[in-house]
């Protein structure tokens, strides 16, 4: 099956500098990709390039088999975008924002009316349907903007910072909505965010951008394997580990790191087969083992490790330069 979204050497500059530099990406149909990176990483520019809003300086993209720079209208007909600012006209009512978008998309009026009612109901906005958007909360606006992005039942959904500016309750609501879109409807989603929690919960794969350059792409565990050798295991010993016990653990050829914790220690092992051997060693030494939990690196661990690597690379380059 061809990829829903792919880019090759996609590059775009502005007078202020390069926003996206040689981007190579591939998003399979039905997959959720988290595009991660700090502000100014090039996430929004990537979404604009993929929707034919901006034209690339170099390279090309394909979305649903179409080149956005050539068939921009057709791409935009089949994609939905939730922009960082909800982008709703405050002078219009919630309902008008949706129905007029339907007209702009050239959809059948009667169908748009029914679909609008369904979406307003589904997104908990039915009671505010006939009120101007001005006066609604940020969370309600995000929900409404998401409903608008889904109005034409798009095959690919681009969500640019969907939870920015939301309080924790509204964030959870929106993340749950996006989660249901991904799992229940099998939609391809490109999620741009710098909130790692929502990315970790929703995404199948992640791409880390920094100043327009792609620094990592894949499943978090795949990227972790390139960053660290081995697996962290938390050993619950009911209290701080004795120095002699820590030394014994360190002496095992399958252990690379032993770090103290309040209830025991975290050991980095070659692979999971080392764990039973360590438990046996502890029991033989008369140490009570209350638990041994393998802790694969979280998306957050992976992201910050990449950020640290980028920072390291930059300072190395600065040193070479000086």
């Amino acid at each position: 099956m061809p990829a829903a979204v792919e880019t090759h050497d996609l590059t775009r500059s502005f007078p202020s500098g390069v926003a996206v530099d040689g981007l190579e990406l591939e998003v399979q149909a039905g997959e959720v990709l988290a595009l991660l990176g700090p502000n100014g990483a090039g996430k929004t520019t990537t979404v604009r390039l993929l929707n034919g809003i901006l034209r690339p300086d170099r390279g090309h993209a394909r979305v649903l088999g179409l080149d956005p720079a050539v068939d921009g209208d057709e791409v935009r007909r089949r994609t939905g975008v939730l922009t960082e600012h909800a982008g709703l006209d405050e002078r219009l009512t919630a309902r008008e924002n949706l129905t007029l978008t339907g007209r702009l998309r050239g959809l059948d009026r009667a169908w748009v009316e029914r679909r609008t009612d369904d979406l307003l109901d589904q997104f908990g906005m039915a009671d505010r349907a006939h009120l101007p958007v001005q006066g609604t909360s940020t969370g309600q606006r995000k929900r409404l903007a998401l409903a608008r992005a889904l109005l034409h039942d798009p095959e690919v959904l681009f969500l640019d910072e969907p939870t920015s500016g939301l309080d924790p309750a509204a964030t959870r609501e929106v993340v749950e909505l996006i989660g249901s879109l991904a799992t229940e409807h099998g939609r391809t989603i490109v999620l741009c965010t710098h909130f790692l929690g929502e990315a970790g919960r929703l995404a199948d794969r992640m791409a880390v951008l920094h100043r327009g350059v792609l620094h990592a792409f894949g499943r978090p565990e795949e990227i972790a394997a390139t960053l660290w050798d081995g697996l962290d295991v938390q050993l619950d010993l009911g209290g701080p580990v004795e120095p002699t016990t820590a030394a014994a653990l360190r002496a095992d050829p399958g252990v690379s790191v032993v770090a103290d914790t309040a209830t025991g220690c975290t050991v980095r092992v070659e692979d999971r087969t080392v764990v039973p051997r360590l438990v046996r060693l502890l029991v033989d030494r008369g140490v009570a083992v209350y638990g041994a939990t393998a802790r694969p690196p979280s998306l957050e661990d992976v992201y910050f490790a990449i950020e640290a690597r980028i920072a390291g690379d930059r300072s190395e380059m600065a040193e070479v330069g000086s």
Partner: protein
Amino acid sequence: MRGSVVRAVMAKDLLAVSRSKAVVIPMLAVPLLLMVVMPFGIGLAARGQENPEVSRILASMPGDLARPILELPRREQLIVLVNGYLLAPLFLIVPLMVSAVLAADAFAGEKERKTLESLLHLPVSDRELFFAKLLTAFLPAMAVSWIGFACFCVVSNGVAWPVMHRIFVPTSLWLVMILWIAPAVAALGLAVMVRVSARARTSQEANQLGGAVILPLIFLAVGQSSGLLLATLPVAMAAGALIWLVALLLVRGGAKRFTRDELATKV
């Protein structure tokens, strides 16, 4: 270019504009003042004068313009001079002003309200977007001007009826000016304002930048329109055609250069 999409963009914009007091009030207040209140007040004042003295004013006007007025009974001279001649240039100000207000809002207003990006993400081509925004400013401007002109005719003739006992406006030159030259002048201003709006970040900035272009245009239009009343019909038609030609060339050039890429870089 799909007409249905252009109409949809216009319908959305006009509905939104109709709810914006900051846009609607100045857009309607100035035409109301120029086309209803002024002719009514002047007509009323002139009607009350038993023997108005306008010969000094007429003496300073070109002979061709003054002669037909001097040939009228004295009671009619002031009304015809003011409502039939001196207010004429205002009909070029109204379409220019209304279209400039709406055109400034076209893209710069969208940027200000942070709605431009979601508009750019719709399957509306660059050309459709450009012409929709142009027409969103042009058609209401012409509607306000023409309705205002109809009101002006009713008010002017109504207030002057006890003196004139006949309909004295519009003349054929008035009709050429309002139906042929005023739309051309509005299109000329719009061609400039839509481009300015696309480049500006706020509608205020667009108004300021646009003002630098529109104001000289207004002065030029006002100055020349008085002269047009001396012209023959073919000359007035030719002048209108020339303005239309320049306006259409500017619109064509603007449409060619207009891209969402350029707009998006300024969002």
